[in-house]
């Protein structure tokens, strides 16, 4: 029976994995080794700022082990959504690590670097032709939003990977990608059907998250014509029918319908059977080809942030928090205005832990039973100078304003640090979350090749 064996080392490049698990993976003679590099999950900061999600040190550790394993076994190694957000700086930071490891270890190979960052003029051109549509819960895109984005990436499918591998690349580093794409690419390139190929990718992009216990570890998928077998490579973990079935719930709006760039993976009729006490066989998935679309992700600057953390243990204050906070806010507005900063120039946010700090308006418990409250005061200003100045005034007033029957005359809050104010820098928000229709799978993702030695 035709089969193709795919390995993933962990959920995200730089999360770490046990070296023994990679050895166990290589003993199974896999056909490729990959790891997903990113996610939008840690928020808009990384896409906006160009910084990598994980540290250079942790990424280099994972990458060096993977390069050793893949190059000595002469199998392709693939990293998708490099550096977290998969923009140009993230991709270059990852390529820099790969070249450095090659120099240190004397590796020689053909490298493919697939770019995913998009030219704003190109995006506006597609927008003008009516080819850009909003995804769930976002407004239609306009030129001003495109211009305001600090970075826009396209999310590639399997085709750019297939192209790079066809050109003989031994290591492929790609910008933003659909999470399962590198594994789906390798399996479909080996002439296996899309349904099991994408299913395998869907599991592997999360490392050992589908195993019990879940963790940052290596997994192997054996893709065959009509099914996939998933197995954890660390003997402490198992893949069971229930653990795999439940993995379909992870980070998807639906457990059954998974939208990908060129089609839909439908897991409605999946069967999950134990292959052994540690491996699970999944069959019954289907793939419906759809007109090709590419998702765009963009982030824009929202302002500059400064925060301070404090807590109160005063029962008198807990009982009249709302009126106290309204009075504090008014003091801040007045004093900021006095030094020339209008309310339109900043956002002032109080997060009250012990009350509704975790869920905000969704918090169903209206009467907190807490004996103390933790308070995070946040200012996001048009400039860092404004944020710092308003936060300073906010701290002083939170600490010192009077309230009826106050007993704690020296101060309302306990501040754990000096200095109490923390400059948190640029704050971003996701501004683009749209799809481009009628698009060639390769057009947005130019590939560069180099011989590394």
């Amino acid at each position, binding site marked *: 029976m035709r089969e193709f064996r795919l390995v993933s080392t962990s959920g995200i490049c730089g999360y770490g994995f046990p070296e023994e698990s990679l050895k166990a993976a290589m003993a199974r003679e896999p056909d490729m080794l990959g790891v997903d590099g990113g996610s*939008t*999950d*840690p*928020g*808009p*900061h990384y896409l906006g700022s160009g910084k990598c999600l994980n540290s250079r040190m942790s990424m280099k550790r994972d990458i060096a082990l993977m390069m050793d394993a893949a190059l000595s076994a002469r199998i392709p190694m693939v990293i998708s959504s490099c550096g977290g957000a998969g923009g140009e700086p993230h991709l270059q930071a990852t390529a820099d690590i790969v070249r450095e490891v090659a120099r240190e270890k004397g590796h020689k190979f053909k490298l493919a670097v697939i770019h995913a960052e998009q030219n704003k003029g190109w995006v506006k051109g597609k927008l003008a032709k009516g080819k850009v549509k909003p*995804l*769930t*819960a*976002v407004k239609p895109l306009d030129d001003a939003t495109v211009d305001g984005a600090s970075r826009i990436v396209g999310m590639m499918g399997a085709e750019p990977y297939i192209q790079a591998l066809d050109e003989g690349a031994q290591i492929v580093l790609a910008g933003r990608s659909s999470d399962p794409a590198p594994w789906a690419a390798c399996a479909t390139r080996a002439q296996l059907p899309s349904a099991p190929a994408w299913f395998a990718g869907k599991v592997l992009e999360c490392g050992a998250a589908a195993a019990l216990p879940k963790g940052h570890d290596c997994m192997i998928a054996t893709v065959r014509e009509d099914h996939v077998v998933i197995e954890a490579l660390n003997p402490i973990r198992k893949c069971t029918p*229930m653990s795999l*079935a*439940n993995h*379909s*719930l*992870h*980070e*998807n*709006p*639906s*457990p*059954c319908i998974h939208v990908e760039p060129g089609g839909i993976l439908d*897991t409605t009729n*999946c*069967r*999950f059977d134990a292959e052994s006490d540690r491996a699970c066989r999944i069959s019954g998935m289907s793939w419906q080809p759809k007109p090709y679309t590419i998702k765009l992700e963009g982030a824009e600057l*929202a*302002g500059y942030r400064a925060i301070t953390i404090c807590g109160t243990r005063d029962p008198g204050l807990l009982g009249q928090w709302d009126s106290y906070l309204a009075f504090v806010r008014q003091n801040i507005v007045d004093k900021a205005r006095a030094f020339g900063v209008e309310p339109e120039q900043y*956002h002032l*946010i109080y*997060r009250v832990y012990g009350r509704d*700090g*975790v*869920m*905000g*308006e*969704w918090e*169903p418990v209206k009467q907190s039973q807490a004996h103390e409250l933790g308070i995070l005061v946040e200012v*996001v200003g048009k400039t860092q100078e404004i944020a710092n100045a308003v936060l300073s005034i906010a701290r002083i007033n939170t600490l010192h304003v009077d309230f009826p029957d106050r007993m704690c005359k020296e101060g309302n809050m306990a501040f754990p640090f000096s200095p109490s104010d923390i400059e948190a820098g640029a*704050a*971003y*928000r*996701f501004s683009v*979350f749209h799809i481009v229709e009628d698009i060639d799978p390769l057009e947005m993702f130019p590939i560069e090749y180099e011989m590394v030695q």
Partner: protein
Amino acid sequence: MAKIKEIAQVCKSKNAGPFEVTIDVVFADKRMFERVKRTGALNAELIGRLYKTPPKDVIFTVYDAGLAFKATVPRRIPAGDLGDTDVYGAQQHAPLLDVDIPI
């Protein structure tokens, strides 16, 4: 009557992209899952009430293969935007824990 936290194996939330949060209730055994399913108590209207969302905007799935119920709602505030309280959406499950199921 039994509360979800007393009968479910897993009750969790997580982002499904930066603009939606998805909430899962998973049962350990098929018998309990079927009993809960028969009551019909877990549905889009309940989720809409708990998460202050019109039921038409709730994607609700009964997932037999996983012995699970899944609901996806638009986030109150997009992940990481000003005023967001939970960038990963990992702690928005709590309102379901105390829901009574008439079993």
